[in-house]
């Protein structure tokens, strides 16, 4: 029975989705819109004292951003994190998942729990332990280097090594999550495909290339997307370990945003930064999702 307007199914859908959609509207879309409007103003500490001095400056904040050397440095550091961290995380978790998937591996459930444990450990506890590991004099890493007869490295104090050190810690902490996803995906690959490949004379590597990878491709892309999104927003690791130093070597986008917005109270500028980050992440997500959709065909 059709009324003058929407079909009864659409109306029912509306009622069911309504509460969830209104929550998203109120707590995500409206604040995001407000943040965008904020980025068009010069809101800072002085505005708190004298709200009438607030000016709409249009895209001036974005202009300032593009001219700011620190923005480009933060962007470079963040992309480094996404690139190196993403590849290491995916590689490590895929490799471990493949290994754990072998029939001869015992205690699979226990190992899975052990590898997942870093994901649920508090970052501050992890940071304290890793600070000890990275300590220039008494840290585990440098003790190891000295045993091998090499020079100690100031992992967190040397601008060349600080970022890779943080990437290593972040990968260690996060790969368990992707590991779980890959293990589940590997279980879903039908055994007959492997049997067929073996009958055709395929070795281990060829089985991986021609059976496992194609079957896993959509999952790899999705996990890659989630991991990359997470690394784009890396904040806690540099904040806790190095504070952005030395010499801004570990300054990331969100850390810069936090510093500008919540330490110096330049909220307009910080909002502009947040939007640039959003656009970048949106672009990457669109690209990866398109690749994933194609691979599912």
């Amino acid at each position: 029975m059709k009324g003058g307007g929407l079909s009864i199914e659409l109306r029912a859908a509306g009622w069911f989705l309504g509460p969830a959609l209104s929550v998203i509207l109120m707590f995500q879309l409206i604040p995001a819109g407000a943040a965008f409007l904020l980025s068009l103003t010069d809101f800072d500490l002085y505005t708190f004292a004298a709200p009438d001095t607030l000016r709409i400056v249009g895209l001036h904040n974005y202009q300032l951003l593009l001219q700011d050397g620190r923005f480009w440095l933060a962007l470079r550091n963040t992309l480094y994190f996404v690139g190196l961290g993403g590849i290491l995380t995916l590689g490590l978790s895929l490799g471990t998942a493949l290994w754990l998937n072998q029939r001869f591996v015992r205690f699979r459930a226990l190992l899975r729990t052990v590898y997942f444990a870093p994901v649920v450990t508090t970052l501050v506890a992890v940071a304290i332990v890793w600070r000890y590991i990275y300590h220039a004099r008494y840290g585990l890493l440098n003790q190891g280097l000295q045993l091998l007869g090499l020079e100690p490295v100031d992992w967190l104090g040397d601008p060349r090594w600080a970022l890779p050190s943080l990437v290593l810690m972040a990968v260690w902490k996060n790969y368990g999550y992707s590991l779980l996803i890959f293990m589940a995906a590997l279980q879903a690959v039908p055994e007959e495909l492997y049997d067929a490949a073996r009958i055709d004379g395929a070795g281990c590597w060829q089985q991986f290339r021609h059976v496992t990878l194609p079957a896993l491709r959509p999952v790899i892309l999705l996990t890659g997307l989630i991991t990359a999104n997470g690394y784009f927003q890396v904040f806690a690791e540099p904040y806790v370990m190095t504070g952005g130093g030395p010499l801004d070597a570990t300054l990331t986008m969100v850390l810069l945003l936090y510093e500008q917005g919540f330490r110096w109270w330049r909220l307009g500028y910080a909002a502009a930064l947040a939007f640039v980050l959003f656009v970048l992440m949106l672009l990457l997500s669109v690209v990866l999702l398109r690749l994933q959709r194609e691979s599912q065909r």
Partner: protein
Amino acid sequence: MRDRFIDLIRLRWWLLVLLGWLILGGCGREDGRERLVFWVFGREGEQVRLLIEAFELEHPDLRVDLQQIPWSAAYERLLTAYVGGQLPDVAQMGNSWLAQFAELHVLEDLSTWIREADLDTTDFFEGVWMANRIDGCLCGLPWYVDTRVIFYRTDLLRRAGYERMPTTWMEWSRLMQRLVDPPAGARYALWLLPDWSSLVIFGMQNDAPLLGVRGAYGNFRDERFRRAFRFYLDLFDARLVPLSGTTQLGSVYQEFARGQLALFISGPWSVGELRDRLPDSLQNRWATAPLPGPDGPGVSLAGGASLVIFRGTRHPEAARKLVRFLTRPDVQLRFYELTGDLPVRRSVWQLPPLRDDRQIDGFREQLARIRPLPAIPEWEAIAARIQYYAEAAKRGLLSPEEALTMLDREVDLLLDKRRRRISAGKYRPAAHY
């Protein structure tokens, strides 16, 4: 339904009693005393409780609600409270924050009260008093003072041929060179705090203005600051100071004890640390001295914290009583004994424990020569950039000229809004910064 309800009461009556007790227990007790909210930060928060009890004994009609907040969260808490209209009556406030909160117009001007209250203002160290004068108003009363002096090993100094710390930069450089050569043989002569404070102190000692008139521009290319910058960088070039705090020096106090480090610049907290950590045999082999300056004894930073009263407090009289109590000489002395924070009043330094402690002579002399930092809201952001460029020049990534030029350019950008407000006449013309 009714039966089930009766059953509930019969069998689980104790649960209802418990619930009732918890709910009623949440109701506050009205005891007729006036209630003051006092925010304290950091270590001082734990120690000041005893002083508050003494205050309540003296003023039985007042009650102080002491709230302790760690330093890391303090700034955000204050700002959030401001936005939410939940500011306390009295708070401790670091000197470097006074300008920002004065800008927000939340601090009560204490000038008239001080005049009428017959408080001996000359008893306070002048440098720290000046730090509380912002845009013509007295924004707080100094509570404790903090400055930087040199801690040194007396035996190493003697081995290098000096009885006392020199008072000029040139003599000091000569001493430091002798400290790394035999017979003193330290690995490093001096350790500097890895932040902007050392460079800024050298600049202030050389009378560099740091910022332009009214704090409207960066003035780091001024010749006086340049000279201070060169002095600072030369210390690292000559390897008298370690470059990176973490690689080359395990722990400052440890190396100091081992004689691998002869001097370090630090604040009052190091007195307590040295007394705790050094073995007894070394306890009488260290001392403090005021900082040397370009041509004679130099100035140092006027740090520390003040007590502020927030505008709109509903208990102004009581708040003033509390602030007055905490800055009384006898209470200041007791505070020093509890925390090791240096008193702001000269008269307190004449009293027994401080008067007879020879090891803090450096602080005693330096406090007569302290200067406040520029009292503008943007100072923290500017200081962070100073630190960045000092670090870059130290490591040879930028030449001193480049570093100062880029620093000036960034600081000019940071001060853009302040310039606009100055030209719009928002600040009193006679104000210093």
